[in-house]
């Protein structure tokens, strides 16, 4: 099946299976404030990857996170990464939504990413909960989860230093040497599930792109490489490709946030007697 895909790729004139170019992102849809109950929430779609995030807090520490960081003076961030049992496409069922090694690892890395942007010194002895629910998986789900969590934090009104943006870059077939000059040689951005499963390698980066326009200046917070072998010489290009992707995603999300705020905060700015 995979071999067939690669043959196709040759015929597509440098386009990927879904018709994208190498550095092109999937369609991003954003919705903020989807829950009334939570202090902040966001729903994010990147292509067919769909993720829902709810943020509670800051509130008094409770539960296991509070006990673990008992003597911690700064704020505590509690992250839970859970994948819906129906999230896989091919009728496969995940046995448990969370508690397996991969989920625990992702919660851990999500917490690291959140800690790097939240100004925790503003919240001494309090706790912020970030709950991530992956509804549908089609590649890059961890990166999309971080993006969604950032949006939910913004929606909750928690001050952050910068957007934490995740983006993957995938080398479809790291073993082929012939396409050094083609656009795929530096990797394709925002990989789908099929691209991640290909015999190449995938690099996931969580970065704080900052507001400067130089994409490669972004501060990498969490980086994770998976998949098969990748020659070191190609790592740098892949990393830059992912950072460019981060910048693009940041711009899109930033626009979405500003739009959301102008739409929803207008009543409170203009008149006090608007009833809806």
């Amino acid at each position, binding site marked *: 099946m995979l071999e067939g895909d690669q043959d196709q790729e040759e015929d597509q004139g440098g386009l990927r299976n879904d018709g994208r170019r190498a550095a092109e992102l999937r369609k991003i849809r954003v919705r903020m404030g989807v829950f009334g109950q939570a202090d902040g929430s966001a729903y994010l779609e990147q292509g067919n990857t769909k993720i829902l995030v709810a943020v509670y807090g800051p509130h008094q520490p409770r539960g296991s996170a509070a006990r673990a960081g008992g003597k911690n003076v700064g704020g505590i961030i509690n992250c839970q990464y859970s994948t819906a049992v129906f999230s896989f496409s091919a009728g496969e069922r995940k046995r448990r939504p969370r508690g397996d*090694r991969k989920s625990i690892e992702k919660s851990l890395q999500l917490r690291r990413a959140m800690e790097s942007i939240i100004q*925790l010194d503003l919240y001494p002895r309090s706790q912020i909960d970030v709950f991530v629910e992956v509804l549908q998986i089609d590649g890059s789900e961890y990166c999309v989860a971080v993006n969604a969590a950032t949006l939910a934090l913004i929606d909750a009104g928690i001050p952050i230093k910068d957007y934490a943006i995740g983006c993957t870059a995938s080398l479809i077939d790291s073993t082929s040497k012939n396409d050094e000059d083609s656009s795929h040689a530096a990797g394709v951005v925002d990989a789908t599930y099929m691209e991640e499963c290909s015999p190449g390698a995938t690099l996931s980066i969580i970065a*704080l792109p900052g507001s400067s326009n130089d994409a490669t200046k972004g501060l990498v917070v969490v980086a994770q490489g998976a998949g098969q*072998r990748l020659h*070191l010489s190609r790592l740098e290009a892949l990393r830059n490709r992912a950072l460019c992707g981060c910048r693009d995603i940041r711009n899109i999300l930033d626009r979405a946030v500003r739009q959301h705020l102008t739409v929803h905060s207008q009543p409170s700015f203009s008149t006090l007697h608007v009833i809806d």
Partner: protein
Amino acid sequence: MREVILSHCEKNFVNKAIDKETRLDGRQLLEARPVNIHFGSNWGCCIVSLGRTKAIAQVSCDIQKPKASRPNEGMLHINVELNPMAAPFFEAGRQSDPSVQINRQLERCLKDSKCIDLESLCIVADKKAWNLRVDINIINHDGNLVDCASIAALAALMHFHRPDVSSSEEEIIIHSFAEKDPLPLTIYHHPVCISFLVFENGNTIMDPTYLEEKVGVAQLTMGINSYRELCSLDFNYLTRTSVADVIPTISNQAANYAAELVSLIKESVRQDVEARYKKEVKNFGRFENCIATDKLTAMFTDKIPIKLSSWGKMDDREDEIMEDQKENEQIIKINKNSAELLLLKGDLFGNGGVNTWQNDSSSDDEEESSDEVVMVEETKTKCHVLDDIELSEDSEEEETQNMTKDDIQT
């Protein structure tokens, strides 16, 4: 028990030392600790020490039904256990955050990079396949558990030999090692994890110790094989600060060291496996090589033959004991004044006797006479009471020079 929080003094001290490109154990910033590998007498069993960090790995295999998604492949299962022996804050049998992290890093490094030919482990497609299990127990924690665990896992997998199978229709025969020679695993490439730690001032060190790990701000682990290919990558912030991305600057160093390390592992595995193939005599009890023979706290004995008297002769034996005691008494009689304590010194440890560690103020002639008694004791019972049991304070100081640094530290 909770992990002890590091004091500010210690943190500042380490940070300042790193500022001056100095490390507490005298290493260069990008220098790893020495690696030692010892193999056990079973296939696929080894103890790896990386400096003071120690891990033990054992590969085992059994036959299971392969996964439905991969019907013609065997399985590889990696499990790193943070033994509470390694550090008091590890809990047995619990999936803690660090243990999950190490497990996943090793899985990515060894499993996802497809370094082992799993297809050759399939016996009957969709029915029976070998299930490999690598158990890694960390027994001493001095930082950089990932590297130590990955070296142990790789060495154990390279060393492991599985029993041969022959299958006729419907039936599978697993041959014992005596019937057919066991087969090694097919390994395509050899990835190892190399860890780095970044400090606040931007300095990067290789192979951090426990103390350094608690001070550093970002950690980087790269799984690299000897062909400079990256198999896994992990970069994480430990604390909330910002340092520049270090991956480009140190990746070259990582690749060079990985190649060095892999050849070291290969060489030690080759030596051991070849010795086994030749069925050399020293085949058994290899773990004894881990025990440093020259250390003060180490001790060997040869086989101890014990004359077994038969059931009916119980009473005789008791008489013998009485005789022994008489012998002792005789010794005492040689010098009644001072001998009693010294004479039994060898036997007194743990026997609930009189405390002999404090010296009574003794006169000179008593000392002389007691020396004689020691001599008598040695010849009679062949007990290794060392000559340096001395009474006077002056001589004790002289004796202390025999201690080496290692005796105290490790």
